[in-house]
C-alpha cells in the first residue's frame, strides 16, 4: 500500500468533547464546594483554594504566608508531622501545597477507595494544624538552607531580582518563599495569627473530583467541612494588597547580576503588564503563542532554530489578580549574550510595529490552542486545578466550553492592537545573570543605556 508523500494529510474534524460539568453547593459556613464527576481511573483529587496568597505578606515579614502554608502538613490535631506523613503514605496520598501570589492552593490526590480518609486529612491540615514552635523552627531552618542554595541557581536568582526590579515594594516584587530579612524575626504567634486570619471557609473554594456522582461528592465534602468556623485573629490581612498600583514603568533599562565564571547568561526581558481580568486575555494568549509561547514561536525559531544561541526561549503574560508581568526568559551562551538580547528585543518590537502578526500566524495559534485544549482535562487533578482557577478569577462555569469559541473570534487586528497596547518596547527591563567581565564591552552597543549592577540579594 503506497501512501501519498507529496503532501501532509489534512486533519479531520474535531471529535466532540464534554468539558467538566461543575455542580456547586455553598455550605452553611460559607465554604463554596465545587464537584466534578471524572470518569476515568479510580483516583480522587481534592483542591482547596484560599484567596490572598503571598501578596498579603506584611512588608517586614516576607514569607509569612508561605511558611504558614508549609506548616500545614507538619502536624495537625495534636498529631505529629510523622504521624500525618504516615497516614498519608498509607493511602498513597500526594499532598501539594502551593503558596502563590494570589492564593494558597492545597491539593491532595489519593485512590478513590481512600476518598474519605484523604478528605479528612486535608481538612485537618487546613483547619487544625498544630503550628507548633518546634516545627516552625525546623521548617524555617530548612527555608534558610533553601534560600542559601538558590543563590547559586541562576534561574531562581533571575526570577527574584527581576520581580524586585519590576515591582519594587508592590507585593509582586517579592517571592512567596520569602527572604532572610522577613524569616529571621518571624515568630510562631505570627504564623498562628496569619492562619486564623487567612484560612476561613467564607471566600475559600473546595474542589472535589472523582468518579462518583456529584451529589455524593458534595455530601462527602459537606460532612467533612461543615464544622469549619472562621477563627478570631489579632492580625488583619488585606487580600486585595496586590490590586495596588505597581511603580510607574521607567524607560528601557538594563540590569546585570554578576556571576563570575558562569557557563551561560540567564536572561529576562519584560515589564508590568495587565491583570487576569483584562478583556484582552484571549488575545494575549494568541499574541504570546506567536511571539514566544510555543516551540514554533518567532523568538524560539529565531534564537534557537535560527541562531543556535539557546536551548530554548519562552515568553508568558503571567497574568494575576493584580497587574501581572510579561516576561521573556532564556539562557544563552555567554559569548552571544548581546546578540541574543538584541534579537529578542527586535522580535518583541517588531510584533508591535514593523512585523505584526499575520493572518496565518493567528489562525495557527488559535488552532493549536483550541484543538489541544481537551488535553488539559485528562486527570482528576488537572480538572480540580482548572476548576479552582475559575474560582480564583471569578470566571463562569461555562468557561471551558466557551474557551475555543472565544479564541476563534480573535482577529489579526485584535492581536496587533493588543501587541501595541501590552508590549511597550520602550519600557522593557532587561536583566542578565551572568559573567559581567566577559560581556560588559558588548553591552553599550545594545542601546539600552548604561547597565546597572544589581545585587543578588536573596
Amino acid at each position, binding site marked *: *500500500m*503506497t*501512501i501519498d*508523500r*507529496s503532501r*501532509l*494529510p489534512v*486533519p*479531520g*474534524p*474535531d*471529535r466532540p*468533547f464534554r468539558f467538566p460539568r461543575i455542580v456547586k453547593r455553598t455550605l452553611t459556613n460559607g465554604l463554596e464546594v465545587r464537584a466534578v464527576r471524572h*470518569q476515568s*481511573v*479510580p*483516583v480522587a483529587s481534592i483542591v482547596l483554594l484560599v484567596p490572598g496568597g503571598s501578596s498579603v505578606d506584611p512588608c517586614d515579614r516576607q514569607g509569612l504566608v508561605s511558611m504558614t502554608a508549609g506548616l500545614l502538613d507538619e502536624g495537625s490535631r495534636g498529631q505529629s*508531622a510523622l504521624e500525618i*506523613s*504516615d497516614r498519608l*503514605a*498509607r493511602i*498513597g496520598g*500526594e499532598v501539594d501545597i502551593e503558596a502563590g501570589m494570589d492564593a494558597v492552593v492545597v491539593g491532595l490526590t*489519593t*485512590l478513590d477507595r481512600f476518598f474519605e480518609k484523604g478528605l479528612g486529612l486535608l481538612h485537618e491540615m487546613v483547619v487544625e494544624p498544630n503550628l507548633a514552635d518546634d516545627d516552625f523552627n*525546623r521548617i524555617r*531552618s*530548612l527555608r534558610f*538552607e533553601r534560600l*542559601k*542554595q538558590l543563590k*547559586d*541557581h*541562576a534561574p531562581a536568582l533571575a526570577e527574584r531580582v527581576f520581580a524586585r526590579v519590576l515591582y519594587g515594594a508592590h507585593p509582586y516584587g517579592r517571592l512567596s518563599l520569602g527572604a532572610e530579612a522577613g524569616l529571621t524575626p518571624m515568630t510562631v504567634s505570627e504564623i498562628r495569627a496569619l492562619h486564623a486570619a487567612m484560612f476561613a471557609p467564607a471566600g475559600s473554594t473546595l474542589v472535589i473530583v472523582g468518579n462518583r456522582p456529584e451529589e455524593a461528592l458534595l455530601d462527602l465534602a459537606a460532612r467533612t467541612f461543615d464544622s469549619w468556623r472562621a477563627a478570631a485573629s489579632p492580625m488583619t490581612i488585606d487580600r486585595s494588597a496586590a490590586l495596588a498600583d505597581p511603580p510607574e514603568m521607567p524607560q528601557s533599562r538594563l540590569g546585570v547580576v554578576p556571576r563570575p565564571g*558562569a*557557563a*551561560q547568561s540567564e536572561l529576562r526581558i519584560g515589564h508590568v503588564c495587565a491583570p487576569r481580568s483584562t478583556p484582552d486575555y484571549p488575545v494575549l494568549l494568541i499574541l504570546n503563542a506567536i511571539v514566544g509561547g510555543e516551540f*514554533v514561536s518567532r523568538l524560539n*525559531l529565531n534564537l*534557537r*532554530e535560527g*541562531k*543556535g*544561541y*539557546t*536551548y530554548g526561549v519562552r515568553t508568558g503574560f503571567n497574568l494575576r489578580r493584580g497587574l501581572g508581568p510579561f516576561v521573556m526568559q532564556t*539562557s*544563552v*551562551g555567554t559569548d552571544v549574550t548581546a546578540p541574543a538580547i538584541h534579537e529578542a528585543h527586535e522580535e518583541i518590537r517588531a510584533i508591535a510595529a514593523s512585523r505584526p502578526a499575520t493572518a496565518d500566524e493567528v489562525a*495557527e495559534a488559535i*488552532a*493549536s*490552542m483550541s*484543538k489541544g*485544549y*481537551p*488535553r488539559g482535562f*485528562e486527570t*482528576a487533578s488537572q480538572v480540580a486545578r482548572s476548576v479552582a482557577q475559575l474560582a480564583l478569577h471569578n470566571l463562569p462555569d461555562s468557561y471551558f466550553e466557551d474557551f475555543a469559541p472565544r479564541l476563534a473570534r480573535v482577529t489579526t487586528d485584535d492581536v496587533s492592537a493588543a501587541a501595541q497596547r501590552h508590549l511597550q518596547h520602550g519600557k522593557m527591563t532587561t536583566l542578565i545573570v551572568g559573567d559581567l567581565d566577559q560581556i560588559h564591552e558588548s553591552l553599550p552597543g545594545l542601546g539600552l543605556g548604561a547597565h546597572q549592577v544589581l545585587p543578588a540579594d536573596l
Partner: protein
Amino acid sequence: MQIPFKKKTLGNGLDVIVHEDHQLPMVAVNLWYHVGSKNEVPGRTGFAHLFEHLMFEGSQHHDHGYFPPLQRAGGQLNGSTNADRTNYWEVVPTGALDLALWMESDRMGFLLPALSDAKFNNQRDVVLNERRQNYENRPYGLAGIALSAAMFAPDHPYHWPTIGSADDIRAASLAMVREFFETYYHPANASLSLAGDVEADRAFDLAERYFGDLPAGPQVARVERGASLDDSVSLVLEDRVELPRLYISWHSPAMFASDDAELDIAADVLTHGKTSRLHKTLVYERRVAADVSAYHHSREMGGQFQIVCTAAAGVTLAELNTAIRTAIEELAAQGPTADELERGVAQTDAQFVYRLQTIGGFGGKGDQLNAYNTFVGDPGYFGRDRQRYFDVTGRGVASAVSRWVAAARSVSLSVVPKGRRDLALTGAAEVQVS
C-alpha cells in the same frame, strides 16, 4: 490491574501496540528506538541525543520543522534520550492521527535526504547550550557525570553521560549522523504504540499503511557489559554551591532482575516521606541534613543504588556518611518492619494506579507499553511489574540490601563549595568534570 492492549508485528519487524481509551478525543503516538548513549563509543559521546534533535528538523517529504504542522493541529510532542533508548511522542486530536503517523514514518524512512550542514551545525550549538544550561550552569549539575565516570570503566557504555562530552559534541560530523541513522533507525529496532481514541483495527491498518513499506534494516547487536568496582572510591568535586552534598552509589541489578523491586522498597524505607528512616533521623530529628533521598536507578545492563544527602549549614559530610552507613547496616541486618513494608507497598501500588491516568507523553500509557515491550518483550508486563512489589518480603529486602549495598563497594562523591575541600570526606581524591 492492566493496560489492555493488542500487539502485531509488521512484516518489517516493527512492533505495533494499541491501547484503546476513549476518554479524550486524543490519540497518543509513541515511538521507541532501542538505541541510547549505551550504543555510543568513547570519543563519540552525546551522539544519540544530538541525533534525537535532528529528528525534529524535517525529513525528505516534509523538509521543514517537525513541530509546526503538529502544533497547528493541536498536538503536543517531544522526545528524549537516555542510556538505553530514545523515545518520541505526539499527543494529537483524533482527527490528526494520520498526520502524526505520516510525520513519524517519514522521519523513520526518509530522514537522511533532508539533512544538511546548516541544520546539523545549528542543533549542535543548541545541544551545547543545553549542556551548559542544564549541567554546567546548575548547582551540583556535574555530580552525576562524575559519579558515572567513577562507577564504570572508561569503555563501559554507562561511563559517559547521555548529554556527552562537549568536545565530542563539537567534533561530531554529518557523516556520523548518516552512519548512526543507518545502524539504528529502522522498523526492526523500533516499537510503536498508539494509545487513546482509536479503534484497534484502524490503528493497525494505519500503522501498516504508513510504516509497512519501510525496509526492516539491519539487526542491532545487543550491548552487554558487566560492571563492578575493584575498590571503594571516595572523590571530591568543587562546585559553585553553598551547602556540601554527599553522593554514594553502588552497583545494583538491572531493571526487572531479581532484587530490583526489593531495592526500590529499600530506597522507600530509607528516604520516602518524613517517617522514612534517614529522613526521620537526619532531617526531622537531628536536623543535620537539608535533604536526603535514595533511589534505585535500574537500567538494561545493570543498576545503581544511590543515596544523596545535603548537609545542613555547619555539618560535615563525614557525619552524614556515618549515619547513612549505619542505617544501611541496620536495614541489611533486620530488614524493614512489617509496618514499613506495608507502607512502602501501599505507596508503590498507588503510583501504579496514577500511571494509568494519562495516555501519552513521558510516562503515559503509550510510553509504558513501549517500555515493557522493548525491555521485557511483553507490553502486558504492567500487572506482573506491579505484582513484583506485592511479592517483596522483609527478608528479601534485607538480603538485597546486604548483598548489593551493605557488603558492596561504593563510590562516594563529596560536592563542596569552591575552596572548601575540608568539608569533603577525608581522603577523597579530587575529580574534575567539564
